[in-house]
């Protein structure tokens, strides 16, 4: 009927899934991680400096 909750690892799992707030924390972690990654990626892209002047043919310099 129940998991082998006498094992600490399962106790941890139980605590993990059953404790109010912890779940929210996990979700928060996920989301936070995602957001930071995205932010960093954007920064990474934006910050790209390039020496060679001959740029990609687009956008056109008119």
């Amino acid at each position: 009927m129940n998991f082998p909750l006498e094992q600490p690892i399962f106790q941890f799992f139980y605590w993990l899934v059953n404790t109010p707030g912890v779940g929210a924390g996990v979700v928060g972690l996920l989301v936070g991680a995602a957001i930071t990654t995205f932010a960093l990626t954007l920064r990474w892209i934006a910050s790209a400096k390039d020496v060679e002047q001959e740029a990609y043919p687009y956008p056109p310099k008119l």
Partner: protein
Amino acid sequence: MTDWCMVIDLEKCVACQGCSIACRMENNTPVVSPEEAKNGRAIRWNDVFPLPVHIAPDQGEYPNVKTHYSTRPCMHCKNAPCVKVCPVQATYIDEEGIVRQNYDRCIGCRFCTMACPYGVRYFNWFEPQWEETLAEYRNPDQLSVNGSLEGPAVRPVGVVEKCTYCVHRLEKAKARAKAEGRDFRADEYVPACVQTCTGKARFFGDLDDPNSTVSQLSKSLRATHLLEDSGAHPKTLYLAEG
């Protein structure tokens, strides 16, 4: 550890519905308007209904007919599906095996009502109302757990409520025992439906105590559970007719 349990002897139950109303008066479940009631929104934590629940053509022809009646409080499941699916732990099983509902926590997502195979969880579609003077008879008992209201407290609109085995009565009994400076005994409290049962069909007590009436009855050959296949390990026991 105490494990509260109810046993209902369907042979002695005469479908009088005393339990339904006793529960209403004890737990302040509101009377909804006739239209609401017709639309399946009546709130009776303890309902009495004819069996089979669903009218089917193949249920015998006169005079070879047998109607049965059943009564149904919360099953207070050991593996309660409602508790599992609650996203905010507004409903939970306490240390004495009672499945409880925290009205201040419930977000009204109605997942528990979906998960419950017994349909014993009720939703406040509108603000509960007592017309004019009817409000006078509401049960004044206020049970709060760490500040959040439970039990008979009048529910706000949009939250789920359910049978609590009259947990506030338990708390009162314990308080009384404490005040009188003695140990609380399991037979000091019964829910309102058990107390009022006209057929003396309901028994209540501690399932962990092998000598209690409910433990004895749980060994009966007639003992059975509602929807045992639901996997919820319901605790409320039935003694079959005949």
